[in-house]
């Protein structure tokens, strides 16, 4: 069924917007994964950001796929969610307002339409976000704490697929080919301007919560 797939033996794809707090979970996992493990030939790590449909070709070509992503599964914030095969949701929406509203679900569906079938294996390693509306923020502690378990889960998954993944003796800088150093997690989070310098809030619900808190005081 996947005879046409001639890309990576395993594609490890981190998606999300690093500028929006826990939305960056998937990309930060990809970053940590590349820094922590020695990967066999054919295993490719991609920082997919919010590239949307531009990721569809890699997905349609890969024989096996691991996706790191912030997921809304109605779980407790910081809960790790692992879904395999048909448990990974996918559908195509025709009603979105912007091209930039493409969900990973849609991209997976389109990739399967292009490849005329699903990959041999697909695993979603997700985390329920705690905070999405802190623009310019990093990961919250509960979500950050799941990066270690998430990349271990991904490594053992790929191992199970017969592609040996080995933890390095020490964490190494991830390759330049993954991400510019300027937006690596430490540089991004430590270089953040202070709240006094640059207002961090803005989303209506955040502001509404603040207003409610003020009223309560």
């Amino acid at each position, binding site marked *: 069924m996947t005879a046409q797939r001639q890309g990576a033996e395993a594609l490890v794809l981190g998606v999300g917007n690093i500028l929006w707090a826990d939305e960056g979970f998937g990309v930060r996992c990809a970053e940590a994964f590349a820094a922590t493990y020695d990967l066999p030939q054919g295993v490719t790590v991609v920082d997919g950001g919010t*590239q949307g449909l531009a990721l569809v070709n890699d997905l349609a070509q890969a024989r096996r796929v691991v996706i790191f992503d912030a*997921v*809304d*599964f109605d779980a407790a914030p910081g809960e790790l969610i692992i879904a395999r095969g048909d448990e990974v949701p996918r559908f195509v929406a*025709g009603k979105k307002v912007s091209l930039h509203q493409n969900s990973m679900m849609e991209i997976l569906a389109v990739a399967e339409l292009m490849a005329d079938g699903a990959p041999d294996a697909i695993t979603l390693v997700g985390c329920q976000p705690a905070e999405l509306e802190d623009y310019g923020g990093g990961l919250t502690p509960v979500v950050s704490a799941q990066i270690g378990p998430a990349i271990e889960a991904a490594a053992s998954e790929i191992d199970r697929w017969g592609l040996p993944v080995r933890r390095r003796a020490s964490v190494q800088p991830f390759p330049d080919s993954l991400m510019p150093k300027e937006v690596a997690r430490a540089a991004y989070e430590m270089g953040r301007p202070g709240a006094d310098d*640059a*207002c961090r809030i803005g989303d*209506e619900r955040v502001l509404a919560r603040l207003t409610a808190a003020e009223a309560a005081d």
Partner: protein
Amino acid sequence: MAMQTPNGFTLDDGGRRVVVDPITRIEGHLRIEVNVDDANVIRNAVSTGTMWRGLEVILKGRDPRDAWAFTQRICGVCTGTHALTSVRAVEDALGIDIPENANSIRNLMQLALQVHDHIVHFYHLHALDWVDVVSSLSADPKATSELAQSISSWPLSSPGYFRDLQNKLKKFVDSGQLGLFRNAYWGHPAYKLPPEANLMAVAHYLEALDFQKEIKKIHTVFGGKNPHPNWLVGGVPSPINIEDVGAVGAVNIERLNLVKSIIDQSIEFTEKVYLPDLLAIASFYKEWTYGGGLSSKSVLSYGDIPEHANDYSGDNLLLPRGAIIDGNLNEVYDVDQRNPEEIQEFVAHSWYSYDDEAIGLHPWDGVTDPNYVLGPNAKGSKAHIEELDENAKYSWIKSPRWKGNAMEVGPLARYIIGYARGIPEFKEPTEAALRHLDLPVEALFSTLGRTAARGLECQWAAEKMLYFYNKLIANIKAGDVTTANIQKWEPKSWPKSSKGVGFTEAPRGALGHWVRIEDGKIDNYQCVVPTTWNAGPRDTEGNIGAYEASLLDTPMADPEQPLEILRTIHSFDPCLACSTHVMTKDGDDLAAVKVR
């Protein structure tokens, strides 16, 4: 109650209110509310950005040489154009000139992005407003083949090809658990194409996706990687070494030959697939003349694609710069992004406060101070708005104005300006397309005009890639392989205080970044993005922006299924903060519609 806006539109907020909100569990980005009269014709339109994203909160205090890497994360589709705008702004502030080769390579990357974005927009967002995927399942493959061959010499057009595709599509639609292409308005009476045209378009939907893997390689070659290619203040990051070998490292002859073959494919795909499809689809919708927005009145382009390096004056820009106001095509004004009297942002109807909200602020002096309040006529609560009060503050988007005028930006604006300036490479293809469809020039000022201009511009951009490729090769052959100027790389060579502006024409319109640098760090960074121009709310005077104007007087077949609204809004290629990729367990609807 009916009222007149200063920029010439009649609004009536009586009748029924229709709310289209792309909310999933995380708050959406763009929401449209309209009032329809007894005949379901739109008489009032309200466009609101529901999410705030001030870039200054991320960049303040950071190294200006790094700003591009952050700005390319604003949005997943416009990555390159934000990065290019950012390096131009910083170079302008610090007085850094780039080498001629860097200019050619940046133009190649920007043009490749235009081609990529326009094709993906047309086939993967906008076409589904005109093409009924479900109807394509009942097409006759042989008749589809005849149709395809009658409009183009594109080789993928045999009856067998369309039959295979149809079977593949059926399999997916039947597979239930995917529910592929669910959540659309299939069968809506506003769809007019015969099943065969629908099937042909679906085939090209897939071919376009396949083609994008090629066009992306131009960014990989010159930016070192993709996604998220590298950029550099002072030039481009990849050195040129013609003798080098392999796919990584310097740009060598093998890589350049690859670029050339992709340019050739881009020209062919645009000429043989995109444009014939566009004209064929348009021919079924000629009576759908709605959606003109501000295009017949006021349009703006900053211009882009400098012929020579470091000259951003209008005469040196191949995508034309200019402003037209009040529909007077006989006069095209020049535009100066530095002049504090020209580009200003107003917040009278935006959720921010200024000391004096009667005036607008130039982006160098931009202030972003949130002030979230609802008007007295809003319904619902602050945390869950049922209906906005557009007479008060109602959007997180500011209202940018050019000399006080609301302006439309984007491919149609660029083509109207090129047309008004009488530039043959814009005027002639426009006239040819109108002749082909037997339409008058006024037909340009519409949703379809916007869609057509994008297609024509895709062809222009593909051909200009070839131009800059040849220019780059000629320069290399003449012995110049310089791609970066690092004379002012070190902050100690910079002035204590400086300010700069960078601009581009992003696929969806005029994009500007304004930066202030103090003691080697970013002190203020303001982006005015194309969708701010088009989707922004009303201003102090009550002038409405392009989105709101474009929806007026459009008849809706069924307000519960607002296909007509999506059609027109999509024609602008909207871009708000794009991050709604979060997976949900059950695949919530991406657009909720409420009619009251």
